[in-house]
């Protein structure tokens, strides 16, 4: 295809889009809404996965030692408890190491970071890996009875519930997205149909003077692509601003909730919305041309 033709096609596409202002706006908005909902589910999923992986990377059970207990006493408990039934592995950490781990888990929490850098309020402790998950409750209470132990926490149940929830979310998301996708397809198809209708005289003259089929089709295909892409970009901008705001609010309201980072989220949503926008645009073009543009 020559440069002249490309110039012509781009010009005609622009003409179509501007001529049908309202349909153009309607199409872009539906794509944007549909992509926004897609992004909403993606943001949820990414965050669920983030929380799950943060929790999973945490050990099965953590035993915290009271402050100001001597290192020697800590080591005695460590040596003894290694042989308790159900214990697979033990790992000692200092409160400094605990602080470093926290920093990794909550990179967005500036307040928290300055707090633990100034005076570390955390505890020394043990990571305890059990042979079986069912060993956890008994071991936990045994550790709690030790005089130097401050407290014991474990979160195995949370992890398994979270991963079940994220599976449900995923399917609900795809279901809703399927319906929205159909609605989007429908409205873009109609937009292209109107453009074809508005240009039926041009199209008939083009055929008469020997324009090729694809020369006639391209402006309409391009129209579908642009509608899909612009809708996706609008959705991305809204989602980007929205998540930025959410991160800010969450860092105040839920300081210890591990939110997925801005980049983690946007990478995922951008891939899906741009891909989705292009896909729906191309599909709509194909449907519209098959049904309404008999060249």
């Amino acid at each position, binding site marked *: 295809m*020559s440069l002249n033709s490309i110039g012509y096609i781009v010009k005609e596409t622009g003409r179509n889009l501007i001529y049908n202002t309202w349909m153009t706006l309607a199409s872009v908005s539906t794509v944007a809404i549909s992509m926004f909902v897609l992004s909403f589910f993606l943001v949820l999923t990414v965050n669920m996965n983030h929380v799950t992986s943060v929790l999973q990377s945490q050990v099965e059970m953590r035993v915290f030692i009271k402050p100001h207990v001597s290192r020697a006493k800590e080591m005695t408990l460590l040596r003894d408890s290694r042989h308790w039934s159900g214990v697979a592995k033990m790992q000692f950490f200092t409160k400094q190491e605990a602080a470093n781990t926290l920093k990794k888990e909550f990179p967005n929490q500036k307040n928290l970071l300055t707090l633990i850098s100034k005076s570390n309020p955390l505890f020394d402790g043990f990571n305890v890996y059990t042979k079986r998950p069912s060993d956890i409750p008994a071991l936990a209470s045994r550790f709690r009875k030790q005089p130097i132990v401050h407290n014991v926490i474990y979160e195995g149940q949370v992890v398994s519930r979270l991963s079940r929830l994220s599976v449900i979310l995923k399917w609900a998301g795809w279901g809703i997205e399927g319906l929205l996708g159909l609605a989007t397809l429908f409205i873009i198809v109609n937009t292209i149909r109107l453009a074809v209708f508005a240009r039926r005289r041009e199209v008939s003259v083009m055929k*008469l003077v020997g*324009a090729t089929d694809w020369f006639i089709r391209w402006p309409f295909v391009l129209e579908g692509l642009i509608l899909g892409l612009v809708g996706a970009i609008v959705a991305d901008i809204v989602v980007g601003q929205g998540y930025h705001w959410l991160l800010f609010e969450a860092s105040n309201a839920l300081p210890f909730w591990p939110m997925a980072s801005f980049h983690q989220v946007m990478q995922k949503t951008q891939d899906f919305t741009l891909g989705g926008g292009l896909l729906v645009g191309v599909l709509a073009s194909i449907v519209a041309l098959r049904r309404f543009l008999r060249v």
Partner: protein
Amino acid sequence: MIRFENVSKRYANGHYGIIDVNLEIRRGEFLFLVGPSGAGKSSLIRLLYREDVPTTGEIYLDEFRLTQLKRRHVSRLRRQLGVVFQDGKLLTNRTVYQNVAFAMEVVGASGRDIHKRVPQVLELVGLSKHHNHYPHQLSGGEQQRVGIARALVNNPVYIIADEPTGNLDPETSFGIIKLLQEINRRGATIIMATHAKDIVNQMHKRVVAVENGRIIRDEARGVYGYES
């Protein structure tokens, strides 16, 4: 060269447009296609530019065999043809210049070629002064000249006109025919369906008469031959 071999066209509703037509048209000819309304003139012309396909028989146009022509190659055939209609089929939202340039744009001509060629063609059809006018600002004859300019602009070998003077008064019609004659002198083959008896009789060109879908007369320097 164009050749019809035993061509019939039967429409979906069972009516025949043309029946068993044999016809040969050489390059450079000027041919009138005459006959009463409903005779089959338009049917024959639509077959030529591959708007329709023959039901039986074969049409040859230079290197093309029209029944074998793939749909995606129809554009190649049409670039050999310039088609003119009674209603002009002009684009109302474009000027005279843009209407003519459009035909070049959509076959991928460069901007430079368009700027050079369009004024030449407008000059030839006598519309240089009107290049910025919209179709509704023109008389019927002038509109028809725009249609002819658009048919001409890509230098087709064949000009096919279906009653191009159908809406025009005799004097204006005569102007259009003179223009087509000039184009013919410059080398294009002209095939024109018409009702205009006086013009056909004056021009002494080849006349092919059609009635009820059949060719009933084919004369080298003919006359209209009907009392209409």
